[in-house]
């Protein structure tokens, strides 16, 4: 059997721009156009353009169902605002991490990970009744990320919407380059910027208009390679790497995404886990030599295996190598030293505070 990865409406644009393509979450996506280093720098210093159409979108009309499946209190979310939250199973394991949008005409939009889109949809439907309205709309929409210190100015030049009034984790509807969009001040890079949702038919027009208008900002199309090195510096977890259905949100350091004073699926198990005490927690660490930690490498301390690296790479911005790993709570304090088993050698590493990188505050 040959499983064909789906193409986004921007596939031909990526090919034309000379992208190296890769399969991710059931989609064929650009990995890089030039080099990951250059695309990473463009986002930190100027602006980068991402095709994020592989992300899934679910429309959920039922408030009480939303309240049951999402880890945060969605009823407190005002229309036009967004929260980062989790979907958990009965055991408190993380099924997915999602963005919840409170839509003005009722209900919620959930932006979910590409590879989980259909399983999330099935799971949410199964928690509701026959009449529950849940729509799997991800394949009807294109999502484009415009990220970097010059992103807000760039998008503002292409829209009449007053973006100064769109706070971080808020959204408005408007047109960008005459294309009707949901303009969302969110991202996965650690920089300011927007994620723009539009209909598939408008995708190429929007993409080209952003590249054209962004020329004066030094815009670069950026692929999943840079997206991964950027999110790692920003300390953002990657579902499937840093957490999965066997990870408790408390272990993943995502306590702040939980409203334990309301009922949601997994809440009781999470409270029990907290009472019993955690056996491992996610930490950030930096390498003290030049070795590169990778997903799956073991951590060692006094000859004992103490944990596992979940993400690791070079930090282009900081100039050293960084990673995230699960360790026993006793070894989680910043300044703690341990080894990363890199091909049989214990390479020295030190626990540091997450995130590794925080963007400078605007003046």
């Amino acid at each position, binding site marked *: 059997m040959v499983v064909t990865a789906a193409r986004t409406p921007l596939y031909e644009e990526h090919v034309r721009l000379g992208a190296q393509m890769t399969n991710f979450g059931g989609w064929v996506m650009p*990995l890089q156009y030039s080099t990951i*280093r250059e695309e990473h720098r463009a986002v930190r210093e100027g602006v980068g353009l991402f095709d994020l159409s592989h992300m899934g979108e679910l429309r959920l009309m039922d408030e009480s169902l939303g309240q049951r499946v999402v880890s945060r209190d969605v009823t407190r979310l005002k229309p036009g605002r967004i929260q980062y939250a989790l979907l958990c199973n009965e055991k408190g394991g993380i099924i997915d991490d999602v963005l919840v949008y409170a839509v003005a005409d009722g209900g919620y939009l959930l932006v979910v990970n590409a590879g989980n889109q259909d399983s999330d949809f099935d799971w949410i439907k199964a928690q509701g009744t026959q009449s529950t309205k849940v729509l799997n709309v991800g394949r009807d929409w294109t999502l484009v990320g415009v990220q970097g210190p010059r992103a807000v100015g760039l998008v503002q030049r292409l829209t009449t919407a007053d973006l100064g009034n769109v706070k971080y984790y808020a959204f408005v509807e408007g047109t960008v380059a005459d294309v009707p969009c949901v303009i969302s001040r969110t991202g996965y890079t650690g920089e300011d910027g927007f994620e723009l949702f539009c209909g598939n038919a408008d995708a190429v027009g929007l993409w080209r208009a952003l590249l054209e208008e962004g020329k004066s900002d030094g815009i670069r199309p950026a692929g999943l390679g840079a997206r991964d090195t950027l999110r790692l510096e920003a300390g953002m977890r990657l579902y499937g790497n840093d957490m999965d259905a066997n990870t408790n949100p408390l272990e993943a350091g995502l306590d702040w995404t939980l409203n334990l004073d309301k009922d949601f699926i997994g809440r009781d198990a999470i409270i029990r886990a907290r009472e019993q005490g955690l056996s491992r927690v996610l930490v950030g660490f930096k390498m003290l030599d*030049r070795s590169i930690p990778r997903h799956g490498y073991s951590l060692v301390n006094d000859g004992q295996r103490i944990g596992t690296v979940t993400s690791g790479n*070079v930090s282009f911005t900081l100039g050293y190598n960084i990673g995230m790993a699960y360790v026993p709570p006793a070894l989680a304090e910043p300044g703690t030293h341990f080894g990363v088993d890199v091909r049989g050698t214990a390479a020295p590493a030190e626990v540091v505070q997450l995130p590794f990188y925080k963007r400078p505050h605007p003046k």
Partner: protein
Amino acid sequence: MADLTSMRFAETHEWVMKDGETATVGISEYAQSQLGDVIYLELPAVGQQLDAGARLGVIESVKAASDLYSPVGGEVTEVNGELKDHPEYVNQDPYGKGWIIKLRAVKDNPKLLDQKAYDAFVEGQSH
């Protein structure tokens, strides 16, 4: 630009340029383009004996860590120390300043490909 016609290539994408009993080893243009941004190399000690096809070290790019193999047997006489601070030379100039090691007492390896055969091999790989 290096003279590629006098080089020999391994199917594991290393090149070797012989000069009498000594030889220089690096990775091909195709290899560097597939690896992407090279960020670290783990290289052998000077004096180490390598057999043809033996692992000589590890090359790490942003994407992954990959093994490097010696296309010919010989004794390591030099490693490219510049790569410690400038691993990107492997991307920028794989046949020039991105060379990786030098060997002496080199033994021939009849399994290596000339440029034409290597290009055909790469062409076959990418389809």
